[in-house]
């Protein structure tokens, strides 16, 4: 590489050669900003994503399922934490990120703005929502930013049980009483479309995607990931004996993929804009928890300062 190459070109060449970028390496400012935005959104999604599921912990129908759900939601808190930590390596502050979430400036995955109204929703979320998230996260294990990639590797390892627990709930319901089967079908009906919306807008409507792909932050396009997910999920629904609520869904011999119906993009953008059924509820919950915890966090800091002071005085004496 000659002297004439700009830092940015050399950065691109470095990334193209499948090298990882580490916190102190030079990086284009836009790369840093894109990453902070994406990683913090991802972290917010984990944390807000705890709420629709924690809604059912106290009502889980067996002690075993209660324990599993509790462990799963706890994992999500852990994942949020890993991701906030990854964003912090880029100079972002968790406090600012959380403020951005609470003021509505930062986004999180819209899927969590849908309500969980039956136990079957715990199954559908694990199976479909975590399934869709995993497709995205497996790709992100290879993302070009080292700390993000490492966080994702850890998350993927831990998430592997999440989708299985969801599918297990669906299996038990689908093999259960007529009421349980109806509960399972109803959950699939409500969660199917929001789940496939999780992959984001169509490639041609996703202007930031190309740059992210070029920087190898993203490794697969929205549409590619969506198609993979649908191809994988349809047989799983068939095994359960449940019907995916898309009359246009059919196998296409030629392409070797499932064709599927048009996503309701109006709904998609409405929920992003804050008009989903639970946007306000979720943000209020997060804000309240944070505000109610302020005196607690302050107290712990005040104690730590006093202790440090006491140690200093003890040493001096």
């Amino acid at each position, binding site marked *: 590489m000659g002297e004439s190459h700009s830092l940015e070109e050399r950065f691109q060449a470095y990334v193209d050669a499948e090298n990882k970028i580490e916190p102190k390496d030079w990086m284009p400012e836009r790369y840093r900003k894109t990453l902070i935005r994406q990683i913090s959104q991802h972290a917010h999604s984990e*944390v807000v994503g*705890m*709420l629709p599921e*924690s809604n059912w*912990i*106290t*009502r*889980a*129908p*067996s*002690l*075993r*399922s*209660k*324990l599993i759900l*509790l*462990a799963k*939601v*706890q994992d999500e*808190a*852990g994942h*949020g*934490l890993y991701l*906030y930590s990854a964003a912090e390596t880029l100079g972002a502050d968790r406090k600012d990120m959380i403020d951005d979430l609470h003021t509505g400036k930062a986004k999180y995955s819209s899927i969590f703005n849908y309500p969980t109204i039956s*136990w079957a929703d715990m199954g559908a979320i694990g199976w479909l929502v975590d399934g869709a998230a995993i497709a995205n996260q497996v790709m992100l294990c290879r993302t070009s930013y080292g700390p993000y990639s490492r966080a994702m590797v850890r998350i993927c390892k831990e998430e592997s049980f999440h989708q299985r627990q969801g599918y297990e*709930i669906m299996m*038990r319901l689908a093999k*259960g*009483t007529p*009421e*349980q089967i109806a509960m399972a079908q109803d959950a699939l009906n409500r969660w199917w479309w929001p789940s496939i919306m999780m992959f984001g807008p169509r490639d041609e409507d996703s202007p930031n995607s190309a740059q992210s792909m070029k920087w190898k932050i993203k490794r697969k396009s929205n549409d590619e990931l969506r198609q993979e997910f649908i191809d994988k999920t349809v047989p799983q629904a068939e095994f359960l004996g449940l019907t995916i609520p898309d009359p246009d869904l059919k196998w296409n011999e030629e392409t070797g993929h499932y064709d599927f119906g048009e996503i309701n993009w109006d709904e998609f953008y409405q929920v992003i804009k804050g008009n989903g059924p639970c946007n306000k509820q979720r943000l209020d*919950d997060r804000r*309240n*928890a*944070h505000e*109610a*915890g*302020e*005196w*607690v*966090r*302050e*107290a*712990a*800091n*005040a*104690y730590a300062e*006093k202790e440090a002071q006491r140690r200093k005085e003890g040493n001096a004496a």
Partner: protein
Amino acid sequence: MENANLYDYTLRLGDTALILGQRLSEWCGHGPVLEQDIALTNIALDQIGQARQFLQYAAELKGDGADEDTLAYHRDAHEFRNLLLVEQPNGHWGDTLARQFIFDTYNYFLFERLMKSKDERIASIAIKAMKEIAYHAQWSAEWIIRLGDGTQESHDKIQQSIDDVWMWSGEMLEADKLDVAMMEAGIAPDLNEIKELWLTKVSEILKIATLEMPEGTGHQRGGKKGVHSEHLGYILAEMQYLPKSYPDATW
């Protein structure tokens, strides 16, 4: 039932663990900071895990095909034998921690002795649980100290929390007929001994935390016999709603 006393005693242990775990799990997703959300959820997981072990054992003692879930989901409030303390509402972080500290300290001394119970099953559950409980006791004591000796606001709040929860603390430290019978059988420890240890430890921590120890030990009784506060009915209504709404279903 042949082992009626042992069954009742095991239920006390199981129900207390279950109801506390249920209460703590309400916090999940609402903690003051992510790290502490995770910490409290860990304790909830441990409590529910212990509850399963005790309730499974109780179910076996009962026979008639019952299992842990039959006992957790198909009994009504008057059949529950948990301490009144653990069914009290979470309140704010200080209220939860006050309840937890008072309970963990007791539980630590209790389980330390249950590990040597003549009942092998209880002893083996206690041995496994002891590591968890020792951690809980440390964690909640650390929080009491931080809140007590933190800011003026936190000091006042946690003092109030301790004062408020105190009246529920007596029941666990006072032996009733069943406790005495279990003690004589070598299955349960002497609660008088635990009360002494508890008083010493609690006053030691409260002193470090610059907090006042309330007078006496609380006077409320009833949970161990199935006479509960109003809260338990609501806890059970929520917890048991699915199995009760769909009696034919398995989950």
